[in-house]
């Protein structure tokens, strides 16, 4: 089965809402960052120690959420093309918050800044966190250039989600070091 059409060979691509835009369009850059984030989560999942099915399961859910977010970001705010796309709701933010809280209960309190690193899975989680922050910044830039009155409710929720996801990934990095017994690298100024 061919996965390519070649329709984008000349530097343009199609948004989910039908517009043909340059591949350097901010909207394309934004869902491209979300795609990159999703890919880093795949790397993170591959770096998890054997048998960490709880964390792996969480990451799968986040990856599915990011697919959903990518679809929403491929729709221009003014377009009426979300008829078949489910709303992205605050429920997904709550899922992250509950997961963060559950992990934090098991962690020692932070006493200093930590450096990104430690166990391979923790280091991977930090890479994902940084990419997540970039994706979030792009979403903000996209919202800044859009008509605020036309922003879909799902965009507001996915922005909250990305903000919370960075927090989740930070806590997950700490959790990975804690559970593997690897000492957290501390910043020593």
């Amino acid at each position, binding site marked *: 089965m061919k996965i390519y*059409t*070649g*329709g984008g060979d000349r530097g343009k691509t199609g948004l989910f809402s039908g517009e*043909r835009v340059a591949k350097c369009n901010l909207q394309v850059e934004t869902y491209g960052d979300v795609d990159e984030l999703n890919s880093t989560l795949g790397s993170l999942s591959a770096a998890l120690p054997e048998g960490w099915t709880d964390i792996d399961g969480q990451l799968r859910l986040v990856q599915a959420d990011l697919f959903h977010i990518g679809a929403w970001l491929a729709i221009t705010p003014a377009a*009426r093309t979300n008829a*078949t796309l489910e709303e992205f709701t605050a429920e997904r933010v709550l899922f992250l918050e509950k997961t963060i809280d559950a992990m934090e209960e098991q962690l020692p309190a932070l006493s200093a800044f930590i450096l990104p690193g430690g166990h391979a899975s923790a280091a991977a989680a930090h890479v994902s966190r940084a990419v997540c922050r970039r994706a979030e910044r792009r979403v903000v830039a996209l919202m800044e250039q859009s008509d605020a009155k036309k922003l879909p409710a799902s965009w507001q929720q996915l922005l909250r989600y990305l903000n919370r996801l960075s927090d989740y990934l930070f806590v997950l990095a700490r959790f990975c070091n804690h559970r593997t017994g690897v000492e957290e690298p501390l910043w020593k100024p």
Partner: protein
Amino acid sequence: MNQQIYSGKLLQRSHLSADTIELAISRPRQFTFQPGQRIRLLDRFQERDYSLVNAPADRSLRLCIRLVPKGRFSTKLRAAAIGSCFEFTGPHGHFVLRPSGRPAVFVATGTGAAPFASMARAGERGFTMLHGVRSAEGLLYSDLFRTAAGAYVACISGKTSPAARMFGGRVTAYMEQKLAPGVYDFYLCGRSDMVRDVIWLIDERFPNSRVYTEIFF
């Protein structure tokens, strides 16, 4: 994604052309869809997506199926006994009409006409329909499109001379030569090479148009 598994009985099978059949399957009461969407037929070892060609309110679900030589799935569908059961999930896909003030142009090759048949049966009118086939025998649902479309153009790309009121050449040639410049909502369904060629043409000749695509393999 809709992963609920439904079950439907094969009610009827009819031949639309030498290599295309239409199946009617009983419709589970709770199953709903929008014109242009697909269902995914499930088999023990494989699954295939097919666009529905009926209107959402119809009592049975209808599928337009190209018979692929030595294709395991389509061969099985061709041979299935009336009354046998199929499992499927759906509806899938986002290839649905997005109403706007722009004129809609439907472009299909072969069985890519299927989602447009569903839209027409659901009451869509006034669109331009370009259907690309090798020979007139491959034109599907032509009576329906003649009635529903504002303009229906059969584009015959094979060597046989096209009949009266048909266009001799591919859909891209028709668009280059005959489709008035303007801003449209293009809906493309068919083989990937057609979709690619039409998209390039749209970028060149019909800027600011919207393009929605569904690839048929």
